[in-house]
């Protein structure tokens, strides 16, 4: 089950009432132990709190929109914090959308993918430089975030 967890479009979107942490009681409900929850947009702008929800076995965080709402220099910090916490519970997404008849989902896809890859490289470079991980481990984490973590989620139902 995917749940939108971020600021939303429109000027009446109620930020305080849509706080991702409000969902904790649902996520921790033992009746949903066998349901996999993916927090789409990773709770943005509360991504620091949100990552600890991924401590639950059946909860994952999706980073889409964060890479569009923020420039890579800021999104790098989000990714770094997530990679340092639950790197196997995070997924990459672009949240691409057709803007208008001229600029479509195509450009949006490109921007999301480019921004994420740049921010990911920057986050991992800092982690290597700060002696947190080796370069080999960094590339394993990159594969996980960009591809493997999401594919594992769907157990053979996606390629």
């Amino acid at each position: 089950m995917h749940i939108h967890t971020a600021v939303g479009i429109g000027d009446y979107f109620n930020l305080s009432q849509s706080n991702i942490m409000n969902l904790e009681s649902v996520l921790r409900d033992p009746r949903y132990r066998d349901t996999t929850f993916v927090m789409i947009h990773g709770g943005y702008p509360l991504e620091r709190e949100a990552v600890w929800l991924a401590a639950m076995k059946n909860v994952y965080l999706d980073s889409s929109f964060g890479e569009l709402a923020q420039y890579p220099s800021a999104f790098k910090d989000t990714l770094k914090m997530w990679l340092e916490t639950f790197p196997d519970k995070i997924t990459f997404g672009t949240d691409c959308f057709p803007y208008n008849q001229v600029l479509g989902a195509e450009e949006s896809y490109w921007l999301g993918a480019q921004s994420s890859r740049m921010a990911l490289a920057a986050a991992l470079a800092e982690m290597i430089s700060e002696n947190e991980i080796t370069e080999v481990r960094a590339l394993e984490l990159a594969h996980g975030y960009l591809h493997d973590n999401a594919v594992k989620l769907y157990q053979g139902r996606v390629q």
Partner: protein
Amino acid sequence: MNQIIFVAWAAVSLFFFVSSAGAQARPFPGPDVQQIYQRLLPQIEKIPAFDHHAHPGFADDPDVDAMAAPPDASEALRTRDDNPELIAAAKALFGYPYTDLSPEHAKWLVAKKAEVKKENPGTAYFNLILDKINTESSVANRAMMPDYLDAKRFPWVFFADSFMWPFNNERETGRNPDEGVFIPLQEKMLHRWMQQESVTKLPVKFDDYLEFIVRVLADNRKKGGIAMKFEVAYFRPTTFSDPTRDQAKDIYRSTSRAAFPARKSTALFKITSSASSSASEVA
């Protein structure tokens, strides 16, 4: 001699310092961080991605999302369509030769895309876009799937919020201009699920309504749906109480024709969540 011993000692110390550098993390990146970045980026660009959340489609396709942006909604700086980075995207994808998007230059881009579409008919066009950005597959979070997206590369995530709105929603629709756009779209989506299941009228009994939801979820799964998505925060607070099934029945019975009281969507969020496991079993 002393000098030789000192040099040897220094060399050994340096060796141990370097070889144990990975053991203790430090609070700041070193001067090597840019070099590491330059080394990593090309390797990361070569990793085929799985895009876990996207809304692919053409701008004139109403099924790209179950929602729509309300008119005059504020946009953050980078998500505005005048973001110059989008010109860089057009250059990278289509060889766009200009540095602005003036109406005259924009015509070039529209014509170029039409040309590429013609050369890559059907599902080939968006497959080509994925290839260009080194994305193996991309989730398509859409109202419905179109015939121009390849189901093998664009697994479907459908929307489930409409199940929370089987009532007279006038009061919620009138709450603010945004809900005036959002809620009618949910009513429309629910109607489409009814059409899918050949249901002309919503069931009077709660149990039958639940059975209808289970059927929709199971059929969507058979059609390739890999997950369902809630955007519940657009409609109501994300705090949920825990009504019993009997309370849910009462809510359904008492509000099916009356104005929908705020926050009673809790019951329908919870039952749709529960229905997802029933749907998995059915599918």
